[in-house]
């Protein structure tokens, strides 16, 4: 077990004088509780001893210097929208919330980058880029809530990965604070940096276990052309899946290819008080977003793609061109989790299976039969163009929430094993946190784990930064659940 230092009144005074009264929370249990859990659910939470809310890099650095002097664990936190407990302070100590570092510092049109602090809501960054005639192409489906810093920490994916890649592809540079408090700058306002070990890329997706990001330089794409959304309705999942690779390989600019099953659409439209067309007949829907340079080319593109869907067995394809129609379709997709949670507040969101596109049909079959075997009702959404599937099971009525937390994770473990067997991995985009730690760690070879431990040790020899996460359980306990 790691022997961490205690957060004494003296250290708290030291932090308070550094951060000002608004910058630290230590006594108010209700406020502290807000920082004890994330969207994995309260059941996976753990109370911090203090929350610090720095306003700038200097304060982050000073806090880390104090934390390393006294060996206090520090858990960095963005919006708390993560789904695997990545922001939960498992060892207590300090939660470092980056919510007050929320400025978009610059949109630089010449270098086509934006510079932002980690607490900027991703959607605000997207909007600011659009206003200047650019596109920030990172699009986690939680854009309304998630922070760009959290997207960096988890290498967030989302609905446009098939076209633009995950967050990794959009980050050109970062200022980060090391566990020692030292500040380093990686990358910059350039796109070519081909030599040596790429520390920037190593930090993206490291879930705050190696360093704390305090400033990001992100790539902006030129303003996209016109887009249209197709909603293809299928009588069964097999034919739907058959379309996916054909759509992606159609040679057209496919921005998104998203899947929703019947159950998910049913509960989400009930929650939203709306309907999608052909709901009675559809076992599944594909939402396909297509981009092209002008209206004529776009028409030709969606005609080609729509015909592919029809020839694969879709019984109807709808074309949403206007803002209103597009929003009506995407609203259902974006609210899928909320829809399932309106059906059952314990609907579990941590399913994040990733398989090669060719294995998607088999994975969906296995999910379906596992659901029957485990007696679970579920809805399924998927970034199906990537092979990234999110089953969302709901708690059986007679099961306690405590039992459900274990039961659902066991269910996902079983599915992850299936995904790995099919050539995939256990987490596509939700990260590992501590909820998925057990199974993800199991899937790594001893040699790989040793390399990963070596990296962690070289950044964070005292193991104070987000301890207990990813591949490194707290002490010798294998599965943390409080």
């Amino acid at each position, binding site marked *: 077990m790691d022997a961490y230092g205690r957060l004494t009144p003296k250290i708290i005074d030291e932090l308070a004088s550094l951060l*000002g*009264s*608004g*910058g*630290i*929370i230590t006594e108010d249990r209700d406020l502290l509780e807000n920082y004890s859990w994330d969207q994995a659910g309260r059941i996976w939470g753990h109370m911090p001893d203090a929350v610090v809310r720095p306003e700038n890099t200097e304060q982050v650095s000073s806090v880390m210097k104090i934390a390393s002097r006294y060996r206090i664990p520090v858990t960095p936190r963005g919006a708390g929208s993560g789904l695997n407990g990545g922001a939960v302070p498992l060892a207590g100590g300090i939660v470092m919330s980056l919510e007050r570092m929320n400025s978009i510092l610059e949109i630089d049109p010449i270098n086509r980058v934006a510079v932002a602090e980690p607490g900027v809501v991703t959607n605000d960054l997207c909007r600011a880029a659009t206003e200047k005639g650019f596109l920030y192409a990172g699009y986690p489906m939680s854009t309304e809530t998630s922070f760009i810093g959290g997207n960096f920490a988890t290498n967030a994916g989302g609905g446009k990965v098939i076209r633009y890649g995950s967050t990794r592809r959009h980050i050109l540079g970062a200022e980060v604070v090391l566990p020692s408090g030292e500040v380093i700058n990686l990358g910059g306002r350039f796109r070519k940096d081909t030599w040596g070990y790429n520390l920037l890329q190593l930090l993206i997706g490291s879930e705050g276990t190696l360093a704390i990001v305090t400033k990001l330089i992100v790539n902006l794409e030129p303003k996209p052309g016109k887009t249209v959304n*197709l*909603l293809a309705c299928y009588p069964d999942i097999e034919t739907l899946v058959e379309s996916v690779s054909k759509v992606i390989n159609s040679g057209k600019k496919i921005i998104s290819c998203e899947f929703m099953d019947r159950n998910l659409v049913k509960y989400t439209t009930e929650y939203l008080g709306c*309907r999608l*067309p052909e709901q009675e007949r559809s076992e599944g829907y594909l939402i396909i977003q297509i981009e092209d340079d002008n209206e004529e080319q776009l*028409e030709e593109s*969606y*005609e080609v793609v*729509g*015909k592919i869907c*029809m020839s694969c067995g879709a019984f*109807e*394809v*709808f*074309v*949403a*061109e*206007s*803002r*209103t*129609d597009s929003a*009506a*379709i995407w609203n259902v997709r974006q609210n899928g989790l909320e829809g399932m949670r309106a059906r059952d507040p314990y609907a579990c969101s941590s399913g994040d299976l990733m398989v090669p596109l060719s294995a998607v049909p088999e994975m969906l079959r296995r999910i379906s039969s596992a659901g029957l075997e485990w007696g679970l009702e579920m809805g399924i959404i998927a970034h199906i163009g990537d092979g990234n599937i999110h089953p969302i099971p709901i708690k059986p009525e007679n099961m306690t929430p405590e039992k459900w937390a274990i039961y659902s994770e066991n269910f996902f473990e079983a599915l992850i094993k299936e995904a790995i067997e099919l050539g995939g991995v256990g987490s596509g985009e939700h990260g590992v946190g501590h909820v998925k730690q057990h199974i993800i760690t199991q899937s790594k070879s001893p040699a790989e784990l040793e390399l990963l431990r070596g990296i962690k040790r070289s950044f964070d020899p005292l193991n104070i930064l987000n301890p207990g996460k990813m591949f490194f359980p707290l002490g010798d306990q294998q599965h943390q659940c409080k």
Partner: protein
Amino acid sequence: MRIAVLVKQVPAVDNVKIDENTGTMVREGVEAELNPLDLHAVEAAVKIKESMPEGYVEITAITMGPPQAKASAAYAVSMGCDRGVLVSDKKFGGSDTLATSRTLAKAIEKLGPFDIILAGERATDGETGQVGPASAEFLNIPALTYVSSIDELNDEYIEVTRSIEGGHEKLRAPLPAMVIPVKEMNIPRLCTLGGKLRAKKTEIPLLNADDLDLDENSTGLKGSATWVINVTYPQMTRQGRKITSSGRLEETLNTILNFLDEKNCLGESK
């Protein structure tokens, strides 16, 4: 049965900008779309068609505007209208609601006879809501406004429910009649790929001022009874003060209370 639907192309923005110098709408760089409220009129027409034996109803979508407004008629065709017609001429430029209604009534007469004419409640750019009823007036037919449902329809008459203040009103009118739905009447359908392909193949013919026997004194700027003389925008300023939480609830509340007190907002009750 022949149905006409009046549709208009509008800017696809939440707040229409008017050029303060010219008094005309700023269209540059703004995407266009079919007026959202007209979609309910199109949907109503297509629903009538679907409720009747196949081939019994024919729907013509009529749009008036610049050449690019043709897209709105095509959109209505992709939703299920049979034909689309564009009413367009430089001479129509600057038409107010009176001149527009006169022009559209002429087009309806030319393309008619129709049993039912459907129109949207109002356009999201002009927000006048006058063109539907005024066109009915020029055609000398009854106008059924704020229609929330069509209850009965045959070759002789139409029976509808109107939304009125505090309740509903049932009305029967002989055909031909103008019917103007409220948005609660239906949910406009999404266009199908098949509908889009059909619209692509459907020619949208043009009617100009000569086709409608309209001289320049009865349409466009000269045929209008009103002109925009001046447009100004109110200056938007914030006069508030931003109070940032100090992290201590009581302290922050006191700051807010003191501020309200300074502004004499707390009255005697403080």
